[in-house]
């Protein structure tokens, strides 16, 4: 049976102000209704004026998604009554959206077509109180959104998740959306149908999926539900469903008979938007290298495994950090290994977005390891300390006396002492239990605080053990 999924994504743009007024768009954590004015409160006579940066950001997203930009687009009123919408209509775009016909390339290489991308304003927030009333906060009312509608090109719940992850990655690379799904900065609705043949089945719409996992789980549930019905020969009812995360199932929000009647018409308070070639080209030139391009280039240039590339290109700042380090220490796989094991862990623990360790400091540590000045265990400590304090690796090594002991004489004394203190292990080795050397080596490491050169230690131990 064939599964057909299309996604409708809403992404909040990272502008300072709202889409049609100069109120701050930073609604998160603000006191209720502290960011409102006559425009976003929907007071009669107040006129909206379009935010230039919101247009710029929407264009960036549209061009990154390879969309066509019509010469002109028009805003429209979408009418419905709900207390989170003070004007009684949402300003959106309908017949003439900002962008049309693009695509997003997934890491699998599949291209998912984008039908349209348009600008619209967000609604306010409602708090439902058990005492029998609801509270309205209009700080979010008027915050700029882009709506990105895909064609029904996705053929499984996994693919829908991949699409959403890649779209988030692109928007974050562009710096136009934070991509935070839990806070609602990035939201997703899905249309899903199944069909035993090439014809399209009746679709249902799923709302309220607040994480990548929720998207995949909700779609899996819904696909299974529809398949079971189709297999039994029952019809699928067109409906809007909501994902109940706690119960792990989709639930009916409304059936088709109650579907909304939005009575769209052109917004008379806003003049058309015209994007000429010059504007479009200027925005196009400002686009950074996008995740798909970066992955392809890294494959060629650094010959890294696919897994390394996917991990290190996930965040633009991490990818750029990797490239700065490789610029200083040109051993990509080495840098990749250290980044995936140490740097990303420290980044996560630091709970910030930026890697605090300077690329030149990181490169210096890797040089010190490769020249044998410090061993890997010490290198981890130096990285952690430099990450935390910003101190140069050489300074840390010097201050803590961490330089690897490869000086023959110093090492020879310690080896001799360890052999003298561990007669049993020595006897074991000499009676043929070669594994005993591991224990002795560990003792040398312990005595030197991990600073002994492992290779030299082993050589020296073998030499002494065989000599006696």
């Amino acid at each position, binding site marked *: 049976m064939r599964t057909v999924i299309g996604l409708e994504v809403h992404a909040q743009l990272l*502008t*300072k*102000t709202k889409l049609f007024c*100069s*109120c*701050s768009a930073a609604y998160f954590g603000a*006191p*209720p*209704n*502290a*960011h*409102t*004015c*006559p425009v976003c*409160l929907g007071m009669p006579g107040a006129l909206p*004026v*379009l*935010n*230039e*940066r*919101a*247009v710029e950001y929407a264009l960036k997203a549209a061009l990154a998604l390879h969309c066509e930009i019509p010469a*002109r687009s*028009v805003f429209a009123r979408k*009418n419905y*009554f*709900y*207390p989170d919408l003070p004007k009684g209509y949402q300003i959106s775009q309908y017949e003439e959206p900002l962008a049309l016909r693009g695509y997003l390339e997934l890491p699998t290489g599949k291209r998912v077509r984008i039908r349209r991308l348009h600008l619209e304003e967000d609604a306010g927030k*409602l*708090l*439902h*109180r058990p005492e*029998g*009333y*609801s*509270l*309205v*906060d*209009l700080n979010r009312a008027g915050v700029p959104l882009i709506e990105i509608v895909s064609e029904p090109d996705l053929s499984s719940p996994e693919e829908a998740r991949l699409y959403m992850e890649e779209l988030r990655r692109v928007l974050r690379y562009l710096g136009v959306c934070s991509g935070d799904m839990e806070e609602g900065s990035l939201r997703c609705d899905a249309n899903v149908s199944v069909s035993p043949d090439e014809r399209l089945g009746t679709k249902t719409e799923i709302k309220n999926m607040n994480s990548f996992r929720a998207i995949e789980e909700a779609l899996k549930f819904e696909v299974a539900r529809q398949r079971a019905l189709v297999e039994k020969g029952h019809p699928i009812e067109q409906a809007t469903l909501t994902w109940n995360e706690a119960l792990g199932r989709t639930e009916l*929000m*409304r059936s088709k008979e*109650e579907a*909304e*009647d939005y*009575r769209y018409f*052109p917004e*008379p308070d*806003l*003049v*058309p*938007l*015209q994007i000429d070639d010059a504007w479009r080209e200027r925005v196009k030139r400002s686009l950074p290298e996008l995740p798909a391009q970066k992955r392809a280039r890294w494959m060629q240039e650094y010959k890294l495994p696919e897994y390394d590339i996917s991990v290190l290109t996930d965040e633009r700042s991490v990818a750029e950090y990797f490239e700065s380090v490789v610029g200083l220490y040109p051993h990509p796989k080495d840098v990749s290994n250290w980044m995936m094991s140490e740097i990303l862990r420290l980044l996560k623990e630091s709970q910030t977005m930026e890697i605090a360790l300077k690329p030149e400091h990181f490169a210096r540590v890797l040089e010190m390891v490769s020249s044998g000045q410090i061993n890997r265990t010490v290198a981890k400590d130096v990285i952690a300390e430099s990450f935390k304090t910003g101190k140069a690796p050489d300074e840390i090594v010097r201050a803590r006396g961490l330089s690897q002991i490869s000086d023959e004489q110093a090492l020879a004394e310690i080896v001799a002492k360890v052999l003298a203190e561990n007669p049993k292990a020595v006897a074991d080795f000499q009676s043929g239990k070669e594994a005993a050397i591991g224990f002795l080596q560990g003792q040398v490491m312990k005595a030197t605080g991990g600073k002994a050169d492992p290779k030299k230690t082993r050589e020296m131990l073998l030499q002494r053990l065989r000599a006696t």
Partner: protein
Amino acid sequence: MITREDVLHIAKLARLQLSEEQIALFQEQLGKILGYFQELEKLDTSSVPPMTHVLDLSNVLRPDEPRPSLSVEEALRNAPRSREGYFEVPRIVEKT
């Protein structure tokens, strides 16, 4: 022709409660308005682009610079009910 059901549907979308007299009145008036449009539809407008605005203007934009908002007190001043800085409205169960 506008039916009684059309009038009731439009009234429902606009959250209006109409009396029987009003339903009859609006059925007649809306019917007339539609009639005028049917008259206009006789014209061949295939070569005339749709006019969305009277003014020949485009790209009226403003820079993305925050300006002071109203105080919460001012924002809530016209609200019939408010509470803890919020507008208070009758309980909303589900978006319809």
